[in-house]
């Protein structure tokens, strides 16, 4: 059984900016434990128990774009979906604990 504790769920929810109720915390802790256990079962089935992380299911590499300028959006288009803007820029709530 994986150790997905209620505290860990709260921590993850905080990192993901998701509001969770106490009831949801209990529920997610149980569900996430189940998922983690399932992954562990699959890992254990592979010899050595270690599977390198896969970022892509198809074995391909080196897909590049040439360094050529393509048209950008206009400032108006860029801001058209923004909840708030000013001075040609996106306007967001002040955030205090970083920079």
């Amino acid at each position, binding site marked *: 059984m994986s150790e997905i504790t209620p505290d860990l769920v709260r921590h993850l929810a905080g990192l993901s900016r998701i509001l969770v109720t106490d009831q949801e915390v209990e529920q997610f802790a149980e569900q996430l434990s189940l998922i983690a256990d399932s992954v562990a079962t699959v890992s254990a089935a592979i010899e050595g128990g270690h599977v390198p992380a896969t970022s892509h299911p198809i074995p391909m590499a080196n897909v590049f774009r040439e360094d050529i300028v393509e048209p950008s959006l206009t400032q108006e288009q860029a801001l058209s979906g923004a909840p708030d803007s000013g001075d040609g820029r996106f306007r967001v709530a002040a*955030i205090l604990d970083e920079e």
Partner: protein
Amino acid sequence: MAKDELMNYEKALEQFEVVIGLEVHIELNTKTKMFCGCRNEFGDEPNTNVCPICIALPGALPAVNRKAVESSIAIGLALGCDIAPNGRFARKNYFYPDLAKNFQTSQYDEPIAFNGSLEVEIPSGAVHVIDIERAHMEEDAGKLTHIGGSTGRIQGAEYSLVDYNRAGVPLVEIVTRPVFGAGSEAPELAAAYVRSIREIVKGLGVSDAKMERGNVRCDANVSLRPHGQEKLGTRTETKNVNSLRSIERAVRYEIQRQAAILAKGGSIIQETRHWHEDKGATSSGRPKSDADDYRYFPEPDLVPVQPSKELIESIRATLPEKPADRRKRLQNDWGFAELEFRDVVNADLLDVIEETVAAGAKPQSARKWWSGELARAANNEDKDVADLAITPIQVAELASLVEAGKLNDRLAREVLTYVLAGEGNPAEIVSARGLEVVSDDGALIAAIDAALAKQPDVLDAIREGRMQAAGAVIGAVMQAMKGSADAGRVRELLIEKANA
């Protein structure tokens, strides 16, 4: 901002060993961004170099810029790194509006380059080998402007405005292993290291390398431990150090601040600190856990980068000479004394002097102008000498006018100020303003005769071998001709006269 207690620097070093670590971010000068075709350009109107990819509209898919990968490989090779046969991108997840995606596309467990080293010479002449742990590719973040509050700083801001023009600009982050043994010169070593990195990326042509524009940015890790202790002390990471001088100052400040805390039996909080150029101090930012909880995972939208041996070798073949080798070659070619050369390096004058010499000037006169008048002018205007409104070709032209005896030092300095004011090339200014040295014997003899009339004893003095007496007449001639007399010729004429 609370005032930190600082320990006297020498005392701090008596008690503690300094360990530093440096993270340098290099903004590449590709035409386009790392993962999209938007222009990579400084200073454009806000949010005009953005597209669905770099402002993270739903469904947008990134594609890696080939040139950025090649530039990153070049940087890795120039730092003596191994190039990873298989590298991939990872998402570094965090919530902050400087990136619209809520993650930064970076590299985590498979950086493109690793295990390098760089020889760095510090102003005292000592050479240190800095071990490079890794160099990885990532994207820059957008620019936030904090509005409201007193000084536009984040504390007290009411809201922030975001410009995503810089979001997605290719970066290479170069991370050192802990650096030991620099002692009291740790601050100088930190600055010299960043200077070397800057020279390398400039030499490679992969970055504009202007610190004032943020093309080269440095985060400085500093920790202290009592002499003889094995275990590393707790470190702080100082950000926002954007000039070589600030790097030196910030490291020195952290040494003094941490020493004061440790000496009193306190402990250092592992945290990010911000450097304030105006106050000459660092202040606490957010606390930092050992690896922030960024929940890195492989970027599913990008496939791995697997540079072929052929590609790596073809890039290696185009690498310019190493900064240390270049310095040795230039010092040898120019014949500068050790100290002269070191001053030139520390004042960042290698490039301009090299170009001036290439334009025909003698190395010593190129050095004289750049490290004298022009360094002063740059200092007064608070900019790099390379950004002054004068080209190495113009300096070479000025030097050749002096060489040919058409200008003396005083006139040349005057011409220089007109060049800086945008009046044109030195030769044009000399003829437009009639500044040429007077070496016409007729005019000089007339002035000499006038001066001798007031100081009749001088000729006798010269005949008796007291040459210093000539100085008074030369001075008077200079004054009469408002500095435009050819002093050497005046002296010759005076001796001729005395011996006639």
